[in-house]
């Protein structure tokens, strides 16, 4: 995984627009959040292989980054993104890692199912 270069991500987002894509979107505190610190509220959600299509999308912020994708009838949004898998040239694999290195958020787009 490499640190996000926003210009590079923007061109990848542009390349994938206007097509049916498989989405994996996830936000998680981890299952141990409350066990390790009882003041923390554990919360997680993910959706895998949802089929979506967006007409416009962009990356914004100064890092960690936000991505918003405008779909036919709504939006897809992720905040806290820090890393990209640059070796994966077909799929857009974005993740946000906290100061401990743990994954907090993931936004992934692919022409084929994950």
């Amino acid at each position, binding site marked *: 995984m490499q640190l996000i270069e926003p210009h590079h991500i923007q061109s990848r987002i542009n390349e994938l627009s206007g097509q049916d894509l498989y989405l994996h979107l*996830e936000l998680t505190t981890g299952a141990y959040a409350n066990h390790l610190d009882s003041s923390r509220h554990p919360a997680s959600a993910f959706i895998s292989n949802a089929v979506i299509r967006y007409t416009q999308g962009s990356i914004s912020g100064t890092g960690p980054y936000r991505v918003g994708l405008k779909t036919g009838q709504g939006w897809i949004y992720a905040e806290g993104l820090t890393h990209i898998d640059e070796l994966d040239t077909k799929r857009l694999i974005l993740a946000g890692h906290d100061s401990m290195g743990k994954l907090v958020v993931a936004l992934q787009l692919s022409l084929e199912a994950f």
Partner: protein
Amino acid sequence: MIMEEKTIMNTNLSVQHILAVLPHPDDESFVAAGTLAKYIAEGAQVTFACLTLGEMGRNMGIPPFANRVTLPAIRKVELEDSCRAIGIQDLRMLGFHDKMIEFEDRELLDGAIMALLQELNPDIVITFYPGYSVHPDHDATGAAVVRTIGQLAEEERPVVLCSAFSSNHEQMIGRADVTVDVTAFLASKMASIQAHRSQFQAAELVGNRVLTQEEIISRYGTEQFWTYRFS
């Protein structure tokens, strides 16, 4: 070996086959690596049924070298390396989805566990204590194991040893009745832990610095289990 383990020994049970049923790669390392290595050294066969590949884990290495897409294949290799370090002869990867065990089709889940019990006829089954094991997958795995073994006739049931670590566990289920001194097997146990390269450096597991021998013994030298009582 400490006195409490006589609860198993008193039954004159010669341990020939142990089945560990745990949901994630690295559960075997922290729960039972030393106990398994010890029984293997005494001639036992061990089957580890790992329900998932831990593909929803949050640890991706420090700095991160894995992601949601690459993690399952990476953790599969780590799991195989860990089993080699312990000496586990038989690894079964059951292919359930990480984080989803509690939502899985019970017939499918229990059926997979029952098939293993019937095939292997283990003397001991190691799993998590349902309700006292923090991660929903741990609790759901332990519940499935207990539910399935509970269907067997009493005389056919293996001894079920459960790991528990929720903050209230001793208050609710008392102290562990099986305590295994694994200091003689710490080399295997640490190699098993460190085989999980994407995981073990996390602060709540081993952390990012080299531990002293004293720290290793105090943290990992003893493994504790609660014998599940079917009533």
